[in-house]
Structures are given as C-alpha cells and as structure tokens.
C-alpha cells in the first residue's frame, strides 16, 4: 500500500461525476434548442497497474470525451425531406393562390360565361329592346374584365418569382457563409483533439435550413469541415463560400447561378426549385389555357358577330378596329401581304361575301371576294371592296380599313338569303337567252376566230351585233370559263346586250325590255352557240311585266351553297299544266323539281329544305331560252376570317385574356349589336347562332365547348390544389416521423437527464466518500509511524 493510494481514482471519479452533471445540465438547458444534439460523457476505465504479482488493480475512471448523439444517415434524410417539404409548401401556397384567383365555383369565369350566354337568351326574347341589348354588351364587358383580372393576377404571381427567388438566395448566401465560417472554427477547435459538438450542431442546423430552400449535397472531409455542392458546383469549400446569383433568361424565366458559372445550377428540391419550376411549368400552363379560352371566345364570337346585322340595318360606314402594321418598314401601311400585316388572328384562304343593299328598294347585290392571305395585301382587299358597286374602301394612315357606302346604299356581311335573287334573267322584262348548262365550255371543235350574231331591238327595228371569239380570249379553249366568255362577249356587244354569268351559266340579255323587244342568236363562222348550249332556233321576246321570285326563311345548311333555278319547260305560272322549275346545287346535281304549273298558286311558298322557301309570282317562263337565276345560300359568309382579323363589326377586341375588351362602338351604342341576320327588328337569327356556339365543340379547345374547356381547367386546378394539399400533408408527416426518429436519437429527455443527474450526484458523493475513506486509511497509515 502506498501513501497516494486511492486519491488518483477518487479524483478521476469526482471529475467524471462533475462532467456528467455538467453535461446533463447542458442537455437540460438546451432541451429546446433547435438542432441541439444530446451530449453524453464517454467514460472508460483508466489503465490499471500491477500491484502484487499477477493481480491487476483498476486505476479508476477516465473521461474519454463528450460526444453528440447523432445518426448521420437520419440527419441527411431529414435534410432531404426538408427540401421536399419546402417545395410542397410552396406548391401548395401557389395552387391555393391560383385557386383564389379563379374564384370558382361562385364568382369566377363560369358565372361570367353563364351571364353572357344567359344574356343572349334574354335578348332573344325581344331583340328590339335596347335595355336587353345593353345587358348583353355589359355581360361581354364583365367577362372581358374578368379575363383581364385573371391574366393580371396570374402574371403578378409569375412576375413575383424573380423577387422571391432573389430574397431566398440572399438567405442561402448568408447560410453558406456561416457554414464556411463554422468550418474554420470547427477545424481550429478540433485541432486540439476535442470534438466541437456545439459548433457542429450549429453547422448542421444551417445545412438543414439550406435544405428547405434548395437541395445541396454535403460532403464531410476527414478534417471535419463540410463541403457543400449545389447542382454539382461547390458553394462551400472549407472556409470559402461562393455566392449564388439570380438571373433571367431571354424568355423572362428566373435562373440560379453559382458564382460566375455560365450555366444555371440544376436544383430540384426546396422552395427555390419549386418557385422556378412553377414559373416555368405550372403558372404558364394555366396562363396559356386561359389565353386559349379567351382567344377562342373572341374568335368564335366575333366570327358570328361580324357577319350579323345591327339593329340599324346595313352599314353606311364602318371602320376596322385592328390596324395593319408597316411590316416591311417602307412607310406605307397596307402593302404587306395579309399574312404578314401583323393581325392577331390568322387570315385563311377563303371567301368573303359582301351584300350591298339599296336602302330605298331593299334590292340586294351580293359579291364574293376570294382571299388568299399569301397573295393579297390589305390595300388589294380595299381595292376589291371598292370594285363593288356603291361602296368604296381605303386603308387609313393608322392601318385601319375604312368602308363607306354611297348615299342610299348600305353594306353588310350577313349570310342572309337574298329575298329577290333574280336579276331579271328569269321571266324578266328583257329578252334573255341562257345556256343549258354551266361552264366551263369545250370550244375545241371550233376554228378560231368564231363569230355569232346577236340580234336585239324590236321586230320592226332590229339591230345585229357580231361577237367574235378569239382563241386568245381563253386560257384553255377546251375549258372556256363563263367569266372569260362574259368578258369576251361584252367587249363586242356594247349597249345592245349584256352577257353575264348566272350560277355559272352564260346568259345573254338584251338591254332593251318590254313585250315588243326581241333577242335572237345566230351562228356566224363556226358553231360556238351550239357548243355553249345557247338556243338559236327561236326569237325570244321580252315582257311588259316581270315574274317576281321571292325567297324567304334562312339557310340552315352547314356548307356554303349556290342553288341554280332553271326553267325546265315553258308556260305560265299557275296556269300551264306541268310547268316545272329545276333546282340544282353548285355541283350541278338536281336538288328538287318544283311544280309551278296549274297546281300551283302564284305567291305560294315552296320549301326547298334547309330552311329556304321560294315563291313565284304570276308570269311566264321559258325553258327553251334557258331562263335561270341563282341563289347564294350561305352558312358562313366569311370563311377567310378577314373580318375578325381586321376587326370589322367585332364584338370583342383584343386576342388574349390580358387585352380582351368589348368594342367601344357597341358600348356607346347598343344598336350596333348584331342580333339579327336580316334587318327586321324582331330578327334574332344571329343570336340563335351565338346561342348555338355554347354547345359547339371547338377544334382550338381540343374539341371541347367553351364552358367544358373552362370546367376542365377549374377541375385541374382543383385536383392539383387538392393533390398539393395532400402532398404537403404527406411530406410534412414524413418529416415529422423523421424528426421524431431524430428526437429519439438526439433529443433531450428531461427525465433521463434527471436520472443522470441523480446518478452522477450519487457517484460524486460516493467518490468523495471513497476519498474520505482513503484519507482515513492514509491517516491510519501515517499514525502507524508515530
């Protein structure tokens, strides 16, 4: 036994107990510190030394260190999960905002559409009621504003992404700098060999917070410092941190860069990643769908509205709402091809039918303008309009088309039926000879030049004019078109007679009318008249009274059609037995044969089908002389969309959700609402077409109706929001579970610490007792020597 027996071990035990109590105290103190990991004193037996022979006697306790209770794998999983939760939180927030913007199912676009289509039904009950018309226009304005608001708020939401990302990036940079600083401190603290537990906890906490914002990869080096990678680039390397930068792509999308890297950092989790993803995917897809909806609504509504008739009847003047732009920059507006004139809506290859009405007589003259957007300029179009009798058009300096009608005339683009389609070639006053068939005609059997004589005037004073046809009059003499023939014949006829094309048939009519006027065609050199199917055998007389043809109803067919009415035989309407009129479609196919003979009462309407009714007044018909008239039956009077593109008689202006509005002309004057197709004050033909739009599947909307497309959009928002709700819940729950797991490993249990305290307190007391015993023993030993 030595003098120092037991003091060493006792002292070590005292120190160990003290440290244990201190650690427990520290644990209790930090029980609520976020990221704090429970610490534990690591005790070990001190190295024993031999005393006697083979016996090994323990030398007491050694404090090996104070360690953190951390599961590194768990920490990493939590960090990753934090990123997922951060992204899910942001997604959820965004979707809830979007859901609020659409304000369904109560105050959103669905009720605006309901009001708009409802207003159509209302106006239809009395189209002449100005208050109801005003209500419809107001509904149009409301839905436009609703679209504007949605576009603006979705835009704001997308526009705020950059600022939000920049704010969050600032946080990231602060944290990376803090981590770099901690790396250095940990390095220097641990150089002495002890673990820098609290510094490490703080660093872990910073890394976790980073994980909420974006996904990083942490690599712990053997030295104890941690390197952080964002999208493969080092942002923290030892004690050095590299800042993240925020930039924008050309398309305005937000991007994140590491330091001076040219390539944007690829991140996939965390709030920042979610923001960038929303900006690129979620928000624009809704914006696109809202724009598609607005665009289709504007396009389809305007297609119908522009071909309708305002309450005031045909237009006297009309100014286009949309301007052409000076695309080639030569200072002249209107000389660009229509496809390149900067209109928001495409102009297709198609036709526009323009009706010019004599406001006195109601006589209607319909002209067709064929439009090729790749061969025609706006000025060309204006020229074509001006070529129509009684209207003229020009392109004003702002690039808008202006159309004016002569005094006493009006124009419109309505597909309504011409009530009096016969221009006098069907039982009219002037003697007429028409071809038995429609062009083109085969003149290949003739040796050009061929001639024929046209005798006009009266029996007492006839005038003969010779018509000469040259081979050069025709592009192809084997298929001479009616138009070519009309031009060639009229060039020779002068004031004696006029050739025209009626339903594609060549018709020659004397310019003199009345019962004593006559017309006779005689072959000259060659047999052109025979080839053309023109009667030569008879002298045709004019009449004192014209046969009146009236058309009623509205055409309900799907395709534009031209009906040709041909007298099959000769006689008096309502008198001659079996007097018949053949009705042919534009392909020359027989539609029906009308009996207008002794079984028919003049003036009685006969239904042709497709909503068209025809009636013939009293008079005489001649089948031999090829009497004919044509009736345009239009389903769509503008297949080219040029009215929509230029904004002629438009209801809506603009082309997207953001710029949609109602034409100011309508807002100022409800009479401009095109409720009808004809001028009758109770005509609701166009309203019916607009109402039918509600149930029409539109190709531009993936073959949905307008409201179904929107309902799908709302449904998708609902599903996405609900999904983001449950995703957030699931991720948060997972995080909770992981945090509970972490708590199980690293958390402080007060009870446990109390027990530890007691334990160390008792161990301290015991060690003290031991020292006191050892002292007594030493005392005994010392006193032995006295």
């Amino acid at each position, binding site marked *: 036994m030595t003098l120092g027996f037991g003091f060493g071990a006792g002292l070590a035990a005292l120190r160990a107990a003290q440290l244990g109590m201190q650690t427990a105290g520290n644990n209790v103190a930090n029980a609520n510190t976020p990221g704090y990991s429970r610490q534990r004193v690591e005790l070990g037996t001190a190295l024993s030394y031999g005393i006697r022979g083979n016996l090994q006697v323990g030398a007491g306790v050694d404090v090996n260190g104070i360690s953190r209770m951390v599961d590194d794998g768990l920490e990493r999983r939590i960090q990753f999960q934090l990123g997922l939760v951060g992204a899910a939180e942001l997604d959820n927030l965004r979707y809830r905002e979007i859901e609020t913007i659409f304000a369904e199912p109560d105050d959103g676009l669905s009720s605006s559409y309901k009001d708009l289509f409802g207003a159509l039904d209302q106006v239809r009950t009395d189209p002449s009621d100005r208050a109801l018309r005003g209500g419809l226009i107001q509904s149009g304005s409301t839905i436009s504003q609703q679209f504007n608001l949605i576009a603006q708020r979705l835009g704001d939401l997308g526009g705020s992404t950059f600022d939000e990302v920049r704010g969050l990036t600032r946080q990231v940079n602060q944290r990376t700098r803090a981590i770099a600083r901690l790396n250095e401190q940990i390095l220097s603290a641990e150089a002495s060999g002890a673990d820098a537990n609290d510094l490490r906890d703080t660093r872990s906490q910073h890394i976790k917070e980073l994980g909420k914002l974006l996904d990083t990869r942490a690599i712990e080096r053997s030295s104890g410092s941690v390197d952080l990678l964002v999208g493969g680039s080092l942002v923290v390397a030892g004690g050095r941190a590299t800042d993240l930068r925020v930039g924008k792509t050309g398309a305005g999308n937000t991007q994140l860069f590491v330091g001076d890297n040219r390539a944007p950092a690829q991140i996939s989790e965390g709030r920042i990643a979610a923001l960038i993803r929303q900006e690129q995917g979620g928000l624009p897809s809704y914006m696109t769908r809202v724009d598609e909806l607005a665009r289709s609504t504007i396009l389809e509504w305007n297609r119908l509205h522009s071909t309708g008739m305002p309450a005031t009847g045909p237009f006297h003047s009309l100014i286009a709402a949309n301007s052409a732009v000076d695309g080639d920059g030569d200072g002249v507006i209107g000389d660009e091809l229509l496809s390149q004139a900067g209109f928001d809506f495409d102009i297709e290859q198609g036709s526009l039918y323009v009706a010019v009405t004599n406001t006195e007589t109601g006589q209607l003259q319909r002209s067709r303008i064929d439009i090729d957007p790749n061969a025609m300029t706006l000025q060309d179009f204006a020229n074509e309009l001006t070529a129509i009798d009684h209207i003229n058009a020009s392109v004003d300096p702002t690039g808008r088309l202006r159309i004016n009608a002569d005094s006493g005339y009006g124009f419109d683009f309505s597909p309504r039926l011409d009530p009096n389609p016969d221009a006098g070639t069907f039982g009219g006053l002037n003697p007429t000879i028409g071809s038995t068939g429609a062009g083109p005609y085969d003149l290949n059997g003739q040796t050009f030049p061929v001639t024929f004589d046209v005798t006009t005037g009266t029996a007492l004073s006839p005038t003969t004019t010779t018509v000469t046809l040259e081979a050069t009059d025709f592009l192809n003499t084997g298929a001479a078109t009616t138009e070519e023939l009309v031009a060639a014949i009229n060039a020779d006829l002068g004031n004696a007679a006029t050739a025209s094309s009626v339903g594609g048939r060549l018709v020659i009519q004397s310019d003199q009318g009345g019962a004593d006027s006559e017309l006779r065609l005689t072959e000259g050199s060659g047999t052109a008249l025979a080839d053309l199917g023109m009667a030569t055998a008879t002298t045709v007389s004019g009449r004192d009274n014209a046969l009146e043809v009236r058309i009623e109803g509205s055409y309900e067919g799907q395709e534009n059609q031209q009906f040709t009415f041909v007298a099959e035989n000769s006689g008096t309407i309502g008198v001659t037995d079996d007097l018949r009129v053949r009705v042919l479609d534009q392909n020359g196919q027989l539609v029906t044969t009308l009996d207008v003979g002794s079984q028919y009462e003049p003036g009685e309407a006969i239904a042709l089908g497709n909503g068209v009714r025809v009636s013939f007044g009293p008079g005489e018909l001649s089948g031999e002389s090829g009497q004919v008239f044509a009736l345009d039956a239009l389903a769509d009077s503008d297949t080219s969309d040029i009215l929509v593109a230029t904004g002629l008689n438009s209801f809506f202006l603009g082309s997207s959700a953001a710029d949609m509005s109602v034409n100011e002309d309508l807002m100022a004057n409800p009479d401009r609402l095109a409720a009808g197709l004809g001028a*009758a004050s109770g005509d609701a033909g166009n309203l019916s077409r607009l109402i039918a739009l509600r149930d029409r599947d539109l190709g531009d909307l993936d073959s949905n109706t307008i409201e179904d497309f929107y309902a799908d959009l709302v449904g998708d928002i609902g599903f996405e929001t609900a999904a983001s709700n449950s995703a957030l819940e699931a991720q948060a729950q997972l995080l909770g579970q992981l945090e509970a797991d972490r708590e199980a490993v690293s958390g402080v249990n007060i*009870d446990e610490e109390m027990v530890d305290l007691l334990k160390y307190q008792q161990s301290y007391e015991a060690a003290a007792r031991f020292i006191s015993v050892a002292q007594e023993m030493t005392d005994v030993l010392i006193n032995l020597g006295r």
Partner: protein
Amino acid sequence: MAIRITQGTLYSRALSDMQRGLFRYSQLQTQVATGRRVNRPSDDPAAALRILPLRNDIRDLQQLSQNVSLARETLNTSAASLEDGSSIMQRARELATQAANGTLSGSDRQSIAAEIDQLLEQMLGIANSRRGDRFLFGGTETGSPPFSLETVNGRTRPVYSGNRDSLEIDVAPGVSTELNVPGDSIFLSRDRTATTFSPAFGSQETGVASYGNGDTGTGFGSLQVTFAGLEGLPGPWMAQGTGDTSALGDLGYQYTAGPPATLSIGGGPAELLPPTPTEMQFRTSDGREVSLVVSDPVIASTAGTFTSKANLSTDGGQTFTEVSSFTADPTGVRNSDDGSMLYLDVSGLSRTGTADVKFGGTFDVFTTLAELRDALVNDAGAPDNTVRDRVGSLLSEIDSAHDAVLDGLRELGFRSSSMDVLQNRVEGLRIARTESLSLVEDTDIAESIMELQRQDLSYQTALQVSARVLQTSLQGFLR
C-alpha cells in the same frame, strides 16, 4: 428496446394533434356556416367538375321557365286580340244578315255601312295589336304596323308589310316554340278557289271563263270587255263601222249576190246592201250587234268568217289586253293598280260588257268588310235586289274569313295550353337539377353538426391529455 420518447416528441405531437383538430374544426365550421360542402374546387375537385355544368343547367332552366311565361303571355295577348276579332266578325255577320233580308231604306243601309266601316277600323287595330312595343302579327318585323289599308280605284285592299317568319323562343331543352303567328295567315285568306264571273248590273253575259289557278286578285274585281276592231274582212266592200259593236269572236258572213244583194252576219237576218258604202248596223242570230260600212261588191255569192277582236281590262280601262285569237289558250290580264293577274279562257267570249269577278276563297277579313261596306254604300246606284244579292253572297265569305280568325285563335290556344305542360316540365327539371346540385355541393347539416361535435369532443380530449402529459416529468416527483 422501445423507442426513446423525449419531451420534444411529446410537445410536437401534441401540437400537431391540436393543429389537425383545429383545421378539421374550421373546415366543418365553414361548411356549416356557408351550407356548402364545396367552397373551393380543391375541397372536392370531382364535385367541382359537376357543379359548374349543373349550375349552367339550372340557370338555363330558369331562363326557359321565364321564356315559357313570356311565350304564354304573348300567346294569350294574341289570342285575346283574336277573340275581339272574332266578335267583330260575328257582329259583321249580324249586320250583313240584316242588310240582306230586311227591306231597308237607303239611309238604313248607309248607317249599317258606317258601322261596318267602324268594324273595319277596329279589325285593322286588332291586326296591328302590340305587346309592349312589339307588333304581334308582323312576323319578325315587330317594329312597324304590319297591316295597312289601301284604296285603289274605289276598292279597299289590305297591304301586309310584315313577313312570314316567326319569333322563335326556346321553351324547354331542345324544344322551341313560335311566339307569334304571322298575320298574313290569320287575316289574309290563302284558300283560293275558282274565280267566277257574273254580268255586272246592266250588262249581259260576255262568255269568258276562268282558266287554271294562276289568278292573284283578291275579293271582287271587274272585267271590262270592249270591242277592239275587226280583222280578216273579205274585201274593201266591208269595213269597220263607227257604231256599236257588241259581237266578239269569229263571225260568219253570208253574201248573196243580187239583185238584190244581201248580207247576213252571224246567222242574223239578211240585210240589203246599198250600191255605195253606207254604215249599217247588223244583228246576229243571238242579238249581238256589228257596225259595218258596206256596199254591194257585185261578186258571186260567197261566205266566210272574220274576227271581231276584244280588249280586256281589269283596272277600269287603264290598260288593255287585246284578244284576236279566240282559242282555249290562257289569256292573262294584268291589273296595273295592284299587279294582280287574271287568266281567262276566251274561247267562249262573244259579247262586250262588264263582268263582276269574284276571286273565290280570297275574301280575307279586311276585303270582306270593305266589300260589305262598299256594297251597302252602293256608289253605282244598283237596284235594291242587286245589293241584297251581293250582300247575301258575302255571308259565306264573312263566315270563311271568320273561320280563318278562329283557326288562328285555335292555333294560339293550342300553343298556349302546351306552354302549361312545358312550364310544369321545365319546373320539374329545374327542381331535379337543383336537388342534384344540392347533393353535390351542399353540406349535410345534420351530419356536419354531428361531426362538428365529435371534432369538438376529440379536440377537448386532446387538450386535456396534452395538458396532463406535458405537466408530468420526473422533476415533479423528486421533491
């Protein structure tokens, strides 16, 4: 070893339990407060998809219900007008019967005529009746009065300026009805029958007949047949005279060489021919007259035919249609006043004169009343019995015009009563749709309140348990 539970675990679990309880609590509160289960699409996206079309349906059905009411009201207004029209026609018939049977003085007839004129005016008012500022009987021309009366050449006729289109309105899903009956089918007759001729007062049968169905005149008309000259005379010894010629058509002559030379026309008595041209009046076997300037040609006896041409006019002699060929081909005569056509078979035409033309079945309410009035006013001064005959012949026309009004009334009544059926159907549909919507979007209040109470209870329990658990720690027991 069991999982370590720390105070931190307990706290955060208690917190999240309470949060969840509160969230569910607030959800239920909103549902009960708004009465709706789906307040945002994300509450139930599938339901949201059904809500929008259902709401549209309900809105449509409300509109349809309004439309049905509007249609019924409009149809009833029209029907009420036509009922007034029907009483007018009834009164007109009473007056006509009185005028046709009684022995009335001229002034009695004048006062009846004045009343008929009143009825005509009232009838015009009915045909131009309005609901609000829309004319009911003008087709889709609702902005201006559809009917007006026009008097040409002493004859009153109606002019219809409306059209034959109808105001259509939807009254049930996929069903539309016509709000109005275009007036021309009610007030203007379209059941044309044969045109008949009768000699006018003081005139004889002319021999014309109707041809086919092509006539377009209405009511009564008059056809004047006048002499238009001779054609095909055998030689210079026979020329047209200036005296009256009432014989028309192909006339045979018989010259008997003399002396004494005689000439007989149309089988009439042979007259002596003077040596120098002299105007003579010949008479045919049936009493028709021909004025000729004749002289003895001193030739062998001969016989042949010549033609006496006719001029036909329906507009009081303003325009003529000349007839030189008396065959069965139709001859059309146009009235320059109203553009109407009359087609005649002139093969039997033999005598000049004036025929009253009756365009059968074309007596509409206006024409009938006007004709009745004009017959009673009797400007031509026809004898009483002629007037009575004419008024009597109008009785059947009054009846058929009245029938047309009644037909219109029946049509309107039928449509109006079908509106009642539709109203019920639309209402039924609307209720069914509203119920569907309610099922989809509304809160089941009883269930929600039960649930609310349950949540309340479990929230309270959670609070109490948490309070108990969180208070507990070893510390408390170590004193």
